[in-house]
């Protein structure tokens, strides 16, 4: 009994204590850096931090992965509340920035003199850059990486169905679906659960594509293109009604098991597909289909993640130097090699430093071409709830056909206005 009690106390103490950071404690200036909790980004972060620490013995950086398990946004918000924020974090989702800014948690990056030259060196397209500017005119995030959502399709099935090239418009898409249906396979699929972030892989990219790069808000005001939204809801409604998309949730991966021929996803899928595909399986990517009468470049949702410096930092200047290092050509090329994710740069395909990578990874070229033409989400505090409302309308209108697209969009606008009202 007594020994049990002793072990008990030992475990308690052990469990509550923190790790030792010896070398770290000996440096003059210390920075903490939080990276995303997936294995590739952790590996990337470790390599970059190691290199930095060797080059800058007087400014040591310690890297920690954000706790895995629940959303990074909640973790960061809780850290701001508890005053336990790191100096730098590279998993900043633009949709959550509004809350961090409201809490006064971030440093304005454009106050550094070399901010502008850094941006122009990365050749980021102006409209993309502007989407990251905050409402008060400052930049609180440095654009880092993007994962454009595109159309993934099974090459062999397309051949068998007699489809010559990936569909570019809604009509071409439906024609392709008809041909695939004859093979007894579901042409496409999207997860029908009304979870708010699911819409990043169906409704939202299609809306951005069909509207030529618009998002939902201008500043604080709702600015949805009614016609486009109706068109997108109608597109998906047709897909479910004509049974191009199944109304079910597959338990086993349907793309690899060839139960479906197409889906909408980003470059992170490549690693998964390469690692799990059966022999002879061939796939490729194409831009999101747009309405037949659409002209111009096709945009899409880019799921950008950016870098920010927290206002609790004691070494602003040093943190900024570290951030610049994180987006250097060297770091960007490692981001490509190790994580297969795209840095937000306009010169991906022209820059010689990346040429070798793209020659070896042809599928990433398509994404690189798409990268400058992406959008994130608006900087609105209630963004999640807005997407939750979109998910509800999507489910009712597109999946179950219980509402017409007009009703769905009208309801969406109404509910969004209520949501925004409540947050004022």
């Amino acid at each position: 009994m007594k020994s049990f009690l002793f072990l008990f106390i030992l475990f308690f103490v052990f469990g509550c204590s923190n790790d030792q950071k010896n070398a770290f404690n000996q440096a003059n200036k210390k920075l903490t850096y939080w990276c995303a909790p997936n294995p590739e980004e952790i590996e990337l972060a470790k390599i970059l931090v190691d290199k930095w620490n060797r080059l800058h013995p007087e400014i040591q950086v310690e890297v920690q992965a954000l706790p895995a398990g629940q959303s990074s946004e909640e973790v960061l918000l809780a850290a701001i509340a508890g005053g336990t924020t790191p100096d730098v974090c590279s998993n900043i989702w633009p949709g959550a920035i509004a809350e961090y800014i409201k809490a006064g948690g971030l440093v304005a990056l454009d106050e550094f003199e070399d901010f502008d030259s850094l941006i122009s060196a990365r050749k980021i397209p102006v409209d993309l850059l502007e989407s990251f500017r905050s409402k008060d005119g400052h930049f609180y995030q440095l654009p880092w990486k993007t994962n454009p959502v595109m159309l993934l399709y099974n090459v062999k099935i397309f051949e068998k169905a007699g489809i010559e090239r990936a569909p570019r418009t809604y009509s071409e898409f439906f024609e392709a679906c008809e041909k695939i249906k004859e093979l007894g396979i579901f042409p496409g699929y999207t997860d029908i659960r009304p979870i708010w972030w699911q819409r990043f892989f169906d409704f939202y990219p299609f809306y951005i594509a069909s509207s030529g790069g618009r998002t939902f808000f201008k500043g604080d005001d709702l600015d949805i293109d009614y016609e486009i939204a109706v068109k997108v809801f109608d597109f998906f409604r047709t897909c479910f009604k004509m049974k191009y998309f199944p109304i079910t949730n597959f338990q086993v991966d349907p793309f690899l098991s060839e139960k479906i021929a197409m889906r909408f996803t980003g470059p992170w899928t490549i690693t998964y597909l390469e690692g799990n595909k059966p022999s002879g399986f061939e796939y490729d990517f194409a831009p999101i289909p747009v309405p037949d009468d659409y002209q111009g470049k096709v945009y899409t949702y880019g799921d950008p993640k950016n870098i920010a410096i927290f206002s609790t930092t004691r070494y602003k200047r040093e943190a900024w130097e570290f951030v610049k290092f994180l987006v250097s050509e060297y770091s960007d090329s490692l981001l490509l090699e190790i994580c297969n994710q795209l840095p937000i740069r306009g010169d991906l395909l022209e820059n010689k430093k990346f040429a070798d990578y793209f020659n070896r990874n042809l599928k990433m070229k398509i994404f690189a071409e798409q990268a400058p033409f992406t959008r994130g989400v608006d900087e609105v505090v209630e963004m999640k709830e807005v997407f939750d409302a979109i998910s509800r309308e999507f489910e009712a209108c597109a999946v179950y056909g219980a509402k017409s697209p007009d009703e769905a969009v009208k309801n969406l606008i109404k509910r969004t206005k209520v949501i925004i009202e409540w947050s004022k």
Partner: protein
Amino acid sequence: MSRVESKAGYFMVMPYFVYFAAFVAYPLFFSFILIFHRWNIVTPMEFIGLKNFVRLFRDELFFKAIINTLIFLSIHIPLQIVIALFFANLLNKQIKFRAFFRALYFLPVVVSGVVITILWQQIYAYETGLINQMLLGLGFKKIPWLVSPEIAMPSIAVMATWKNVGFYIVLFLAGLQSIPNELYEVAEIDGASNFQKFFRITLPLLNPTVVLVVVLSTIGGFSLFIEPYILTGGGPLDSTLSAMLYIYNQAFYFNHMGYAATLGFFFAMVILIIVIIQRKFIEREVY
């Protein structure tokens, strides 16, 4: 009972008093404050008077969630009582291996709801689920257990019954065994049929157990959370959105602490009222 005033008594209940102050009194008190504020934990609290209540009464989703929970209960409770009574009756007879059967039926009660839910996700799956496969094998059509807005909540109710009925079988069994045999013997002499014996002797005497089963199931039903959380996320078309899931989303996805506290408060009142009504209607004097 010792008649001497005992100071020791104060010391011994002191820990409970501290605990009560911290984890019962303070939360209750704080919830009364929260419901008049808007707060996301990070920024300071904002006093907004009755706005949370105004929002609540206009919140169709919340009322849908409460109705969903009532639908769940209206299927779960009767089903539970009927099945539990049925098996308890069987087990009450003179049979061998009673302990074995009882233990087996009781097993799902102790296993985590998470396991049960993951398991039933496979049983209910539309394309490849166990039930649908059996149906197809027998020549029937597949049923959209979790994908149809009409059937989804009842499906969850059935799953919850499967999980908990073992507990109620045990309760009813204990209740049955406490009914004196003489009552049945007298009734037989009077020429009562099995039917009459059940409805005039067994059921009335089981009333306290029935009340207990109803109250416990109700309280359990109102906490419905992990099942919709894992299985459906609240869909399809919000048909499986339980009140707790909605409150959880409001508080921890959208960070509306004040509003979530208001929802919790209102919901707690609803529960108390329903439990009181149930007791009034179902409780009978047992002679």
